């Protein structure tokens, strides 16, 4: 069967698109790597009814091929469709510091996912650190789960731009106020211009070093805080592998789209965080808009809503950047690439040999060549070689087994 629309990713963007498309009478397949629908925001919530949608869970899409007028979407089996919507979301953006590979150091999103999706306490005494407004709901989720949150550390300082943006979106302002009130009630300090610059422990985190930061993130005034867990996140990175594979145009860290969520490649749509990190509400609007690429002009109401949410996201991005001062936290032995265990000094050696771009550094010192394919060290390696982080071209969006390949060989030969 050839579907009118195949959606990869069942988060807020993909779910909305699949539901709207089915209601409009299109044949729809919805694929997700995970065992449940919902993506990162809705995880653990009740599974929505998706009448008329072929839902295929536990399907890791590792590649998409465009042949003539259709797409072959390869997971443990192949799905064929005339239009493809990629809504694969984002993952936490992380930056290295000494001890960041100790068990007990979790990403902020990971800590949130453990509580919301798995009903597991990430730890008993947790420090939350990094940058961006996402740290607040993470801290509140932990508090609500009965975790002792020792401090919330925001590396950036409050910006007038952010205050102005909040004033224009009352719902976001109310949400932020609610979090702040909850933290104050629980007597959890929220400190701006602070960061965790090292984690300590034998086999697991026993404490962290906290420093005050100058505006460009140079640390000074260090102290230690005892804790068994650190939840750390510096925003999110769009997970656009499939779109990059297909040759879709990118800008900065994300894929560019038009008013119908169309990418630069014919028949390929994108919605949600892959088009630029903007949160769950924007993902829902974009998912609905994407269907209009198949059924006609997008409603002005949706376009206006998207523009409003994008403006807000842009203000966030400018208010909570990752500033290069984090490089002062590194020591020669700090791991940059967790998978291949590449240290700062190994990267410096490669640089001394003349490697001055991420690709050459990668060939010489192997950062980003391991299992995660640079998802965790991509930002750091790019900045350490003086480049802007950009989506990387990965041959496979997901690791595949020999069995997957032989299965496809068999199909090819018939």
């Amino acid at each position: 069967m050839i579907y009118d629309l195949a959606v990869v990713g069942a988060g807020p963007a993909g779910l909305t698109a699949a539901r709207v498309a089915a209601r409009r009478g299109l044949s729809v397949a919805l694929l997700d790597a995970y065992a449940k629908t919902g993506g990162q925001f809705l995880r653990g919530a009740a599974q929505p009814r998706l009448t008329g949608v072929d839902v295929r869970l536990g399907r890791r899409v590792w590649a998409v091929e465009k042949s003539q007028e259709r797409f072959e979407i390869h997971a443990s089996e192949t799905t064929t469709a005339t239009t493809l919507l990629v809504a694969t979301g984002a993952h936490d953006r992380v930056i290295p510091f000494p001890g960041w590979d100790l068990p007990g150091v979790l990403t902020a999103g990971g800590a949130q996912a453990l509580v919301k999706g798995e009903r597991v306490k990430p730890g008993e005494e947790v420090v939350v650190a990094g940058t961006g407004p996402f740290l607040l709901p993470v801290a509140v989720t932990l508090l609500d789960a009965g975790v002792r949150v020792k401090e919330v550390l925001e590396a950036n300082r409050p910006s007038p731009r952010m205050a102005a943006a909040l004033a224009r979106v009352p719902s976001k302002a109310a949400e932020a106020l609610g979090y702040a009130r909850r933290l104050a009630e629980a007597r959890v300090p929220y400190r701006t211009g602070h960061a965790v610059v090292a984690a300590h422990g034998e086999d697991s985190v026993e404490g962290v070093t906290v420093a005050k930061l100058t505006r460009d993130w140079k640390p000074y005034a260090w102290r230690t805080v005892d804790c068994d867990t650190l939840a750390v996140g510096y925003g999110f990175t769009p997970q656009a592998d499939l779109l990059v594979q297909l040759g879709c145009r990118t800008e900065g860290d994300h894929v560019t789209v038009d008013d119908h969520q169309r990418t630069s490649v014919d028949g390929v749509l994108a919605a949600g965080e892959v088009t630029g990190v903007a949160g769950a509400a924007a993902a829902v609007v974009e998912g609905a808009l994407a269907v209009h690429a198949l059924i006609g002009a997008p409603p002005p109401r949706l376009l206006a809503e998207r523009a409003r949410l994008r403006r807000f996201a842009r203000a966030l991005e400018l208010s909570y950047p990752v500033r290069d001062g984090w490089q002062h936290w590194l020591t020669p032995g700090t791991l940059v690439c967790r998978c291949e265990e590449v240290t700062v000094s190994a990267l410096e050696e490669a640089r001394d040999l003349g490697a001055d771009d991420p690709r050459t550094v990668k060939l010489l010192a192997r950062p980003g060549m391991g299992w995660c394919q640079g998802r965790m060290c991509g930002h750091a390696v790019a900045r350490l070689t003086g480049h802007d982080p950009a989506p990387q071209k990965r041959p496979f969006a997901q690791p595949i087994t020999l069995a997957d390949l032989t299965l496809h060989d068999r199909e090819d030969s018939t």
Partner: protein
Amino acid sequence: MIEFRFQDRVITAEEGQSIGAALHAAGIRSWRTTRFGDRPRGLFCAIGACFDCLLTVNGRPDQRACQTVARPGDEVTA
């Protein structure tokens, strides 16, 4: 509640919980060591992106603990 084995321990997990979450909840925070530095690894991203949490499930190596739902009777090793 369901039960599975990790090395020589019996671990209980909630229905639908991942093996990684169940191990973490049982106080087991690392289950493998790295190839070169012999450093302990467990959960980091919890959403299948970092591959820190790899382990062997019923003889299948290199499974992401955070993405693998625990089933009754699973045999899990490092």
